[in-house]
């Protein structure tokens, strides 16, 4: 299994029945493929719908129905369309149960940076700032390191998307919860030791006695 698949499968286990979920573009979107068939969640797309289904193919394509990445998608029987104000009312108003998104950096205080690398990349924040402030649970799903460098820091260096909003970090190596005391490791990959995990992580990790292996 490749690292992204491991992450997507593990994130998928976080969803509960009847939740309203918003998935970021890229890796977070993959998690939808791995949700247990007994768990029924409704997906929101911030460009204006709930009940988003799979990508539309062939005669399913309707040019008036796109996702937040501009791709043609389907909508389920429970779905509804609305304007951006309503969409962000759902988001900021606390109606979205879980949002899953990627990060450039995340730190042990739950700070998140994922919208700008000054001087290099300025895509804009889109809906990310509202999503992490408004969703009840914020899960960061990302590779543990980039080019051998930890993406999980003591303190974010890049400009923040929001302060203290991240609840959970899921990488291919570990599942971590942001607590007042710091980053609590809940699960670790069978492929590495606790020492190796800490060596690959800039933030100080809290290792509980009941640490278990990450199952996907």
């Amino acid at each position: 299994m490749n690292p992204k698949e491991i992450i997507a499968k593990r994130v998928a286990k976080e969803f509960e029945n009847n939740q309203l979920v918003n998935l970021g573009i890229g890796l977070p979107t993959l998690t939808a493929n791995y949700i247990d068939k007994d768990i029924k969640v409704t997906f929101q797309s911030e460009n204006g719908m709930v009940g988003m289904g799979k990508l539309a193919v062939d005669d399913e394509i309707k040019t008036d129905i796109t996702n937040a990445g501009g791709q043609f998608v389907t909508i389920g029987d429970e779905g509804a369309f609305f304007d951006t104000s309503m969409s962000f009312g759902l988001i900021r108003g606390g109606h979205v149960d879980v949002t899953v998104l990627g990060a450039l950096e995340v730190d042990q205080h739950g700070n998140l940076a994922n919208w700008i690398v000054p001087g290099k990349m300025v895509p804009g924040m889109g809906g990310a700032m509202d999503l992490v402030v408004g969703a009840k649970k914020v899960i960061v799903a990302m590779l543990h390191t980039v080019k051998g460098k930890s993406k999980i820091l003591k303190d974010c260096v890049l400009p923040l998307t929001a302060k203290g909003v991240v609840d959970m970090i899921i990488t291919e190596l570990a599942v971590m919860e942001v607590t007042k005391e710091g980053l609590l490791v809940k699960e670790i990959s069978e492929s590495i030791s606790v020492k190796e995990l800490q060596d690959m992580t800039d933030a100080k990790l809290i290792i509980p006695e009941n640490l278990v292996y990450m199952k996907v």
Partner: protein
Amino acid sequence: MSKVVSLNKVKGLFKDDMTIMIGGFLGCGTGEALIDTLIESGAKNLTIIGNDTSFVDKGIGRLIVNNQVKKVIASHIGTNAETGRLMNEGKLEVELSPQGTLIERVRAGGFGLGGILTPTGVGTLVEENKEKITVEGVEYLLELPLRANIALIKGSVVDDFGNTIYKGTTKNFNPMIAMASDIVIVGSQTLVEAGTLNKDMIMTPGVVVDYIVREGK
């Protein structure tokens, strides 16, 4: 007098230095015939307000590529490399606003409100030069209203009084910008006679619409 006019007629409304709001999300819900007309008008130094700058060959993206824009206020510019390039060269001013904040600023402008209070952006670059207000122990940013000279709307089904229905995800910014601009131009995908629409489905009442042009049938 009928509100239904030719694209040539609305071309004369576009002037240099105007502020124009344009509906759409990555081009979905943008009236491309209206964009064509704005390009043909040659109006320059425009301030464009919209969700994003789309792609180089679509919607707002085409105005950026055609160097008609002085400033853009949007939430996302990452899908149009020209926006970033012009910004880095100092030829285009970009004001980034979180998507949920941007739409509420437009709503405030259109609904007669003095601004909105949002927790989004607190503790980030977005809070720079903005007033912070604490309500019941929670910090909010005061975000100010936006208005424009002209709004370019894309309607899926429009009657000849301007009553507008938007299908699917074409709604996005369209219903709000229709309220926040001095002149409202709707590009109709399908144009029908007033009285034939289901009035419970109308999202933009024709009373706020000044001109209707044909995007499609």
